[in-house]
């Protein structure tokens, strides 16, 4: 039960478990963002859950095409902001009003009016740090090792190439059928990605057995 939960949580971060034969998934390249969007819709409609698209920039409408809901970063940020506000209030009240009260021209030891600037600043600080930390945590980053990096072509994902990856951990994954589906959706080629781990030497020495296929 817990194991299943962990697996699903990791899957939302894009971290999937390889199959017993080390197959991590199938990686398909598409020609442009439009084709990628269309393919993501097709893969979702076929019932796949463990898949993701990879692109050099966020593709408009992809969240809907993939059937992803709203990001949770907002809630984390809200919690961060409230924490910052509480810390700032407590800090100014406790240091000035409790721990070492200083009587300066009869002014109150603690008042909310002069405390506002620091309350504001710390709210922003904590909220901003929470937004960034939350974003990286939800994304499962930093993740220096990723089996996808074994693919030679995948290095163009941050430049001008558009990929769709279906993970082998998905219940519906089937080497032939999934590949056929991706090709029917207009993949330029489909490649098998193997999770060879990091022990095999530095990236680039060992490549997954790329099964390159010409455009369908």
């Amino acid at each position, binding site marked *: 039960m817990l194991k299943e939960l962990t697996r699903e949580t990791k899957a939302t971060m894009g971290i999937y478990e390889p199959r017993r034969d080390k197959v991590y998934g199938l990686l398909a390249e598409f020609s442009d963002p439009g084709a990628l969007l269309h393919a993501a819709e097709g893969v979702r409609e076929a019932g796949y859950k463990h898949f993701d698209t990879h692109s050099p920039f966020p593709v408009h409408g992809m969240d809907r095409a993939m059937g992803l809901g709203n990001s949770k970063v907002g809630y984390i940020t809200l919690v961060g902001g409230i924490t910052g506000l509480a810390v700032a209030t407590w800090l100014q009240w406790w240091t000035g009003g409790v721990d070492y009260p200083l009587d300066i021209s009869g002014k109150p030891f603690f008042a909310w009016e002069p405390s506002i600037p620091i309350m504001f600043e710390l709210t922003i600080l904590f909220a901003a740090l929470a937004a960034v930390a939350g974003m990286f945590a*939800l994304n499962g980053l930093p993740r220096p090792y990723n089996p996808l990096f074994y693919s030679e072509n995948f290095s163009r994902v941050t*430049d001008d190439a558009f990929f769709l990856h279906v993970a082998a951990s998905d219940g519906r994954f089937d080497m032939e059928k999934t590949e056929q589906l991706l090709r029917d959706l207009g993949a330029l080629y489909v490649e098998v990605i193997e999770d060879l781990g990091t022990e095999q030497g530095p990236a680039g020495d060992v490549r997954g057995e790329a099964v390159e296929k010409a455009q369908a």
Partner: protein
Amino acid sequence: MSTASTGKSLAFTAGDGYHDDPPLVAGNLSFHEVTDLVALHTEKKTPMAWYGAFSIANIGLMILLLSVAYLFWNGVGVWGLNNPVGWGYAIVNFVFWVGIGHAGTLISAILYLFRQKWRTAINRSAEAMTIFAVICALLFPTIHVGRVWAIYWSLPIPNQMEMWPQFKSPLLWDVFAVSVYFTVSLVFWYVGLVPDLATLRDRTPLTKKLRQKVLGFFALGWNGANRHWRNYEKAYLLLAALATPLVLSVHSVVSFDFAVSIIPGWHTTIFPPYFVAGAIFSGFGMVMTLMVIARKVYHMENIITINHLEKMNIIILLTGTMVGFAYITEFFIAWYSGSPYEQYAFINRATGPYAWAYWTMMSCNLLFPQFFWFKKLRRNVAFMFVVSIFVNIGMWFERFVIVVTSLHRDYLPSAWDYYTPTAIDVLTLIGSFGLFFTLFLIFLRFLPMVALAEVKMVMPQSDPHFYEGHGDGHGAAHDLSAGKPESDRGKS
């Protein structure tokens, strides 16, 4: 395996497809060409010109280090401060540098919230400028305290005296505001950098092990996954939404340093908005100075187009006029208040011993930007460069006028004095520019100076509907003439 369909020979347009907006990226570039254009500068052999510029900047940095070391050894007596004028160059420089930083946050956060897509060409370098300017700014109050080794008293750190900072003081608010501003700007900048660092990482040949390791470390394993982009875009939006009130608060808090006191010329409620407008104005002046040089040197004319520069000039015109309006309002309020001290402070500002500084400020900040009402001048690169220099000078003098003229005439005429900076004052100011340019040159050399992922996002081919219809871009694009190269446009 060719991705030619995302490449050239497509019709380009930007905006809503109904208006004849010029494209944000000129020259019919493909995604790959944009990557190349920016990434190459971090990959190729360091050009000699860079070494030349870096040496000059380093001389400035050395001047800064030496003058600061001299100051630490001897104390603040080496500066030109005297009895009524207890705040001099250090505070002027502090406000000047913090203000410069504001343009970067305006471009990265406020223009992002307003969906101003043209910001993508300049936001990376403007944010870098923010961070380096705030580093310069943080230096000055630190060295201004006199006993630098006790600077930690300004932070709420438990100490052997069992004392805490005085949270009712605007000076302490300033410590918090500027350091929060620095932290948030740095984080914002880094988040924006992650996808571009991944781009550089993926372009690194296997033979360059160290470069691969460093970039691999800082890129955090980014792989462009849509599940990641989803959280990333949300976090980016939230950071922009948080940075917007933050940037407005920072210079407001800086203005409280003055406005909360009872010195005539400082004690005015107009200060927060007037300081914020001035900060954005001065920051855009500096962005313009840097961008005009950088786009020329790095051949970025297709990404930072003349249209981008024109939009920045409009902001300079707007904020410059706002600042000028604030100068005049100050005079009106001084007269209207009926307070003789207030009236004297302002008449003395314009006609007293510092009139030269006042009129330098007035002409640079109010007068010169007015030329940007003319479209010809707004689009003239040489002219805008000159004006941007004047804006930088004028905004430095604004802070000088505010700080020094208000202080040099005390309530007690026997205490009146004239403030003259010493050589150390001037050298520290010059040195801070050395620090700024050293950092900026390191940035230009090692990091992508244009936000690649964001620029690609505003290119018409990034729209998935662009490929509908005949697949030649007619799905989203309507205007074929907009795809003409930079040189052909503007004639029609």
